């Protein structure tokens, strides 16, 4: 590393380009995993009513009939709604205690049991400074007081930062909708989904209902992320397009100086291949250094600074949610890709000119 300034400039360019890339990949991978895990933990079929092409509440009177369908092992009615606690929107899930997702576990206090009791996601609770034993009310129904009995954490950090759980009945009271659920989660025996679907058709006949299976939900999720990733990618590409010439120019920095150096090396007995080996080795080190620093920076950015400025590309509610652990997953592949990418760029910026300088008669290269 004889050319310190040049090395530093090239490294900085590489870092500037790669850091957002690595951070973004890690975040989107983390979110994808979390949402897939959430979908995986959910029911096999989701049943709702349909109005104007949107999901709407489904009457509870169908619950027993659905339960009786052959192949159905469990049906869980839920109410999922949103409401303001103080100044933040929280997602309220009304579900009976025994039906809570398995990944949800109390980290302090206990689960809700009686009317008016809730458990709050740990990050949400931290935001509102709620402790087990505290009471609060929702803006939509100020008269009703809720008792916090516990705080929960879940596999998905978005859950613990935005959800609160209460009994189905409390949720029905809170939203003032009796006799309906926002959806039924249907668990089924493997391979029975199409039969269940035709039985559902038999039950609902003329009602506007809608069934979505896990795969569709998964697809829907994926599509959402791909869209967000797409927006990010577009912005990133612009930055990238500016960064590539920067790297090329920077790798070409001091070209005349290097040309002279190569001439001297050739004049004192170096072989062309040895010269190119040395130059390639330097580029390898620079790329490795740049990519590694970029990786460390992106880890710091995502893990310690929670992806400020970049998270909103991937988590639509990032601005609305209280601070929460941004999900992220750093995989080796993106890192190796970045490394090879920077290697490619720095090589392109230097190998050809070095080869030219190296195959000319030394006198011609040595002249400044």
């Amino acid at each position, binding site marked *: 590393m*004889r*050319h310190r300034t040049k090395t530093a400039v090239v490294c900085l360019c590489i870092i500037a380009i790669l850091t957002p890339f690595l951070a973004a990949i890690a975040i989107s991978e983390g979110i994808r995993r979390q949402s897939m895990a959430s979908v995986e933990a959910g029911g096999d079929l989701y049943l709702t009513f349909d109005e104007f092409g949107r999901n709407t509440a489904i009457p509870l009177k169908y619950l027993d009939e659905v339960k009786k369908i052959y192949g159905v092992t469990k049906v869980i009615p839920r109410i999922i709604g949103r409401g303001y606690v103080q100044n933040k929107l929280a997602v309220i899930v009304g579900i009976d205690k025994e039906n809570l997702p398995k990944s949800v576990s109390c980290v302090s206090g206990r689960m809700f049991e009686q009317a008016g009791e809730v458990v709050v996601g740990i990050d949400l609770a931290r935001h509102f400074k709620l402790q087990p034993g505290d009471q609060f009310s929702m803006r939509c129904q100020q008269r009703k007081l809720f008792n916090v009995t516990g705080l929960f954490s879940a596999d998905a950090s978005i859950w613990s930062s935005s959800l609160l759980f209460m009994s189905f009945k409390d949720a029905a009271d809170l939203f003032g909708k009796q006799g309906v659920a926002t959806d039924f989660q249907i668990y089924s025996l493997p391979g029975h989904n199409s039969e269940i679907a035709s039985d559902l058709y038999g039950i609902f006949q003329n009602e506007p209902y809608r069934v979505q299976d896990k795969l569709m939900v998964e697809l829907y999720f994926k599509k959402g992320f791909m869209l967000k990733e797409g927006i990010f990618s577009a912005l990133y590409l612009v930055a990238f397009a500016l960064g590539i010439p920067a790297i090329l120019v920077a790798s070409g920095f001091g070209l005349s100086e290097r040309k002279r150096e190569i001439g*001297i090396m050739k004049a*004192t*007995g*170096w*072989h*062309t291949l040895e010269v190119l080996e040395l130059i390639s080795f330097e580029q390898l080190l620079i790329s490795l250094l740049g990519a590694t620093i970029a990786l460390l920076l992106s880890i710091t950015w995502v893990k310690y600074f929670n992806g400020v400025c970049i998270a909103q590309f991937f988590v639509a509610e990032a601005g609305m949610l209280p601070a929460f652990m941004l999900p992220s997953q750093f995989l080796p592949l993106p890192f190796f890709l970045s490394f090879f990418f920077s290697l490619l760029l720095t090589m392109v910026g230097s190998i050809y000119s070095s080869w030219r300088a190296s*195959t000319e008669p030394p*006198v011609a290269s040595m002249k400044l």
Partner: protein
Amino acid sequence: MIKTEGLCKWYRGHSSHKVSAVQDVTLSIVKNSFVVFKGPSGSGKTTLLNIIGTLDRPSAGEVFINGNNVTRFSDIALSGLRREKIGFIFQDFYLIPNLSSWENVSYPLVPLGISARNRYETAKTLLEKMGLGDRLAHTPEELSGGQQQRVAIARALVNRPGIIIADEPTSNVDEETGEHIRSLLKELKDNGATILVATHDASFEKPADVVFKMKNGMIG
């Protein structure tokens, strides 16, 4: 052992008029001799020595070293020849700016896979011999012209070459150091090397076996 036949080098300047730096030089230099090229500035001494030292290609003519026509050598063969047989002391020193004296001197040894420790020792011995034992870690810009010249001389000797080509080796040094360099070159000759020197310095005629006078690119 060094022969040139009809060596010419011409440059086409911006005015598209041809400058002949070397014209039809035919000479032969026997092994283990001390040869001096003298002549006015611009007479083609540097150009001729560069071509003989395989650093430049002639426009016409041929150079033979040890009976091989090096004008026909490939890039690899030329590098090999320079590595094993030739030590070049440049008029403009041509040291690598970011390297210290000892690194510059031992740089030709890097591709040979010699350990840094051994390279350092080799360079140190040579630099001490050049009176620069206390300047090992200095970079060229921290050295005076004469000191740089001596570093360049040490580098030319690092591969123990059989042919030493010195272009104005004493142009930047005082009388005393000049004398030192002359006696060093003489000593190398006595140890079996062939020495080619281009110089304005008349004192080189004493140790010289042959003096070629150059004028307008020709040996006269």
